[in-house]
């Protein structure tokens, strides 16, 4: 009877929709938190690039004016304010409406950019919350939701996606010639920036400072809006694609640890950039194909496009910019996976180094396939031999070249034959990794390699005590944010906990931007206030790590949509305990060292952990 009563108790609120909370109101700063006026919208529509857009091409459900009203906001910055910071994750792009900005590539350190500690609860608050957690599941404060009551409640503490603008002019005063020390480019009015990080779900590659002496007015466009604008306007799509290509190329080259070791001069950089090619393999929305593949139980290799094949001539050095690749070698009638590559890794280095110093030609020793999708930068062999090889050779002779570059092991033993040397290069890597080949296959095939905080459980040590689940629940108002269940290989389980992927495909379809990367650490988090419960993220997650839950108010009443009478649902998942000190509670709570949150790109760590 009591159960029936609980079910009947309901709290009526409107079903959340995409534009319930316009982007312009999703700001913690009360002064900036306001709707765009009709006059402002008119002005925007009269300015480029919107004036050149054909509004009739936009569907009735997504009119251009409404996209601008709901998916953009104007921001005013003063001279020296940081608009975006290198290394941060962002979910929006910026269009300069007035004034100008500077893109600072390097020269400002982290402290100058005001990077602070994450906003976390104090230990006392965390402790108190253990005793004040609600007893019912998924309790929320409805007054915080914009749909609550008749008006739109002011939103506080929302994840706005805004980069903290701090007192950069004072910082720059500490460096009298700050701009000379930094490599920076002036971006005039009308420039678009930030699209790379917003659309590519990757870290910002440059810092952008407002540099107009008076004021810089920007239009911030959340990526869902930018995506729609690009979809219905070909010119913008072409423009963004071109920017994406040129800036992505430069960023990928400059972030490569290998090229960093080569210590190239400015002129050499220019030559490399001019010769390098940007290539994409596989599908950007690979998760759909992957899910079908799993359902049909097809051979995954048949669906993974080959980037370079074993036995072929190495026609260039490949630097992985984004995505993942499978390294395999022929074995019997099939292929044996012995490794994988991710962002920052290189492919073909061993062979190119050997071929540059020897007349004995060495073909590629492994096949590289795109596991999902892969963005690579190809530096042609002639450019490598002319510019990079001499510098790498010097670095190698000085002992400055990292012996193990992530993804490939360089073997320089002169006594060995060339082919043997390269073969050893790969073999040594896998030997060093000590990862069981079948485990390697499992990790690649299930795309677990995407995880940066994958929850691995050693079932030989796990006593099924569920301390991890309890600890997780206690940090999240008595709601565990993962399930101790998942895919198993040998005695290792990859539990259904958000892996905080390198490539978070769950973010792709979110209509409101509720699921986003946090600015500092890049954890994938869900803003409960702007989540409309559409389940797009849960359906997109290839690992089934996002759960949709019905929410209740503090009096245990289920919140209902008055129109359809259905419960209001929200997406939930592991947030890595970002609001608590000490890191993920699950890992700290495991008494038997059975649970570990692991970065799947750190093969050294993985091999150590699997071979404890």
């Amino acid at each position: 009877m009591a159960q029936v009563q609980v079910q009947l108790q309901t709290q009526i609120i409107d079903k959340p929709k995409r534009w319930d909370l316009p982007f312009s109101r999703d700001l913690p700063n009360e002064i900036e938190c306001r709707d765009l006026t009709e006059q402002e919208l008119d002005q925007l529509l009269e300015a480029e690039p919107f004036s050149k857009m054909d509004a009739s091409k936009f569907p009735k459900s997504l009119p251009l004016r409404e996209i601008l009203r709901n998916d953009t906001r104007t921001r005013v910055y003063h001279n020296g304010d940081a608009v975006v910071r290198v290394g941060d994750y962002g979910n929006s792009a910026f269009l300069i409406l007035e004034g100008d900005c500077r893109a600072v590539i390097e020269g400002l350190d982290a402290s100058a950019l005001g990077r602070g500690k994450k906003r976390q609860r104090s230990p006392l608050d965390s402790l108190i919350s253990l005793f004040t957690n609600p007893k019912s599941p998924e309790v929320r404060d409805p007054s915080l939701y914009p749909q609550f009551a008749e008006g739109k409640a002011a939103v506080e503490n929302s994840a706005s996606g805004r980069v903290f603008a701090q007192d950069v002019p004072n910082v720059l005063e500490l460096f009298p010639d700050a701009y000379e020390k930094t490599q920076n480019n002036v971006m005039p009015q009308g420039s678009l920036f930030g699209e790379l990080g917003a659309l590519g779900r990757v870290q910002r590659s440059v810092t952008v400072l407002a540099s107009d002496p008076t004021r810089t007015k920007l239009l911030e466009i959340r990526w869902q809006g930018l995506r729609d604008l690009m979809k219905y306007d070909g010119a913008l799509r072409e423009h963004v694609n071109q920017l994406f290509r040129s800036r992505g190329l430069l960023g990928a080259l400059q972030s490569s640890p290998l090229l960093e070791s080569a210590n190239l001069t400015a002129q050499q950089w220019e030559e490399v950039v001019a010769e390098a090619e940007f290539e994409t393999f596989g599908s950007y929305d690979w998760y759909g194909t992957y899910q079908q593949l799993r359902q049909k139980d097809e051979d995954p290799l048949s669906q993974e496009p080959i980037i370079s094949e074993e036995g072929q001539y190495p026609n260039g050095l490949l630097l992985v910019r984004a995505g993942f690749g499978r390294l395999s070698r022929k074995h019997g009638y099939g292929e044996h996976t012995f490794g994988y590559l991710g962002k920052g890794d290189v492919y073909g280095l061993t062979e190119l180094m050997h071929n540059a110093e020897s007349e004995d030609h060495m073909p590629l020793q492994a096949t590289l396939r795109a596991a999902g999708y892969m963005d690579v930068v190809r530096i042609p062999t002639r450019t490598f031999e002319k510019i990079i090889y001499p510098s790498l050779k010097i670095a190698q002779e000085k002992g400055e070249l990292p012996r193990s570059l992530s993804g490939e092991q360089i073997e320089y033993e002169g006594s060995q034959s060339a082919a043997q040397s390269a073969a050893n290069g790969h073999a040594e890597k896998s030997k060093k990794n000590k990862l069981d080949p079948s485990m390697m296959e499992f990790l690649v095939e299930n795309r677990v390699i995407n995880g940066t905080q994958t929850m691995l459980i050693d079932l030989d040590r796990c006593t099924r005590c569920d301390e991890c689940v309890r600890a997780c629940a206690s940090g999240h108002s008595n709601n565990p944010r993962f399930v101790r269940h998942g895919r198993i290989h040998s005695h290792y389980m990859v539990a259904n906990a958000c892996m905080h992927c390198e490539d978070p495909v769950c973010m792709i379809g979110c209509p409101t931007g509720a699921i986003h990367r946090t600015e500092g650490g890049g954890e994938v988090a869900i803003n409960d206030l702007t989540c409309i419960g559409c389940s797009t993220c849960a359906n997109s997650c290839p690992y089934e790590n996002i759960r949709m839950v019905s929410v209740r108010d503090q009096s245990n009443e289920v919140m209902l949509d008055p129109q359809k009478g259905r419960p209001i649902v929200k997406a939930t998942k592991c947030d890595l305990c970002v609001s608590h000190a000490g890191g993920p509670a699950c890992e700290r709570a495991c008494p038997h060292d059975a649970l570990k949150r692991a970065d799947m790109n750190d093969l050294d760590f993985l091999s150590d952990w699997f071979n404890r």
Partner: protein
Amino acid sequence: MITFKNRRRWGLTISVILGVAFAVMMLAYSVMLRNTAFLSGWVLFTLMILLTLYNARKKLTYPPLFKSASWMQFHIYAGLLSFVVFFFHTGWRLPTGSFESILYVMFILLAGSGFIGLYLTRTIPKSLADRGSEVIFERIPRFVRELREQAEALVVESVGFNDSTILSDYYSEKLADYMARPRRIGLHLFWVDRTRKDFQHELRALHRYMNDEERSVAEKLSDVLVLKDDLDFHYGRQGLLKGWLFLHVPLTYGLLIFAMAHMVLVHAFYGGLA
């Protein structure tokens, strides 16, 4: 990363060093004709408090007070040390008074349950990982119910074949009780349970009385028996992994109360001896 083997080696080495240091100190006290019982008693009580604190740490997810696994390592080796200290404290002999006897038995039971628990936590997980699918303990009764429904549906299906009752008779006679809920828990814990294999052999023997369709159903029923057996295995062993703490934890608090009473009595009646 330190391997388990090295960690064990370090833990044991440090424990042995501390144990020897304690023994030397006891010897020194003894040579100086000082009362060793107070020294060993207070060391033992301190160790007991530290060991008990682990339970509190488990309850406090926040603030971060070292990893639970580190506490567990401390708990294991401090427990081992407390066992040594206990025997020094009791003078390597059995107690004579009734109160001391209760205290003595409680400590032995507590330490014994700790050692058994350690053995179980290091051995049972492997057997669970090797057998059947991974299943959450609390959900096992539900899965058993689903299996029973599945088995019953198969049996009902078999009745449809020429009104044959071979399978349904066998099910109601032999399998219905077995499928009703988790069974043979004790057997799964300590001995080899042949019940499932016996049922499978009997089903196989019935094949001669069945037509092809019934045999196919009997094969499926045989597969269900394997799943049920795995669930029973998990239920028994996971239950034991959880259950031993129901002995260990209450004994801990009981012993603490008795130990405190013991200390009050000892200090009240020690008579001022040095």
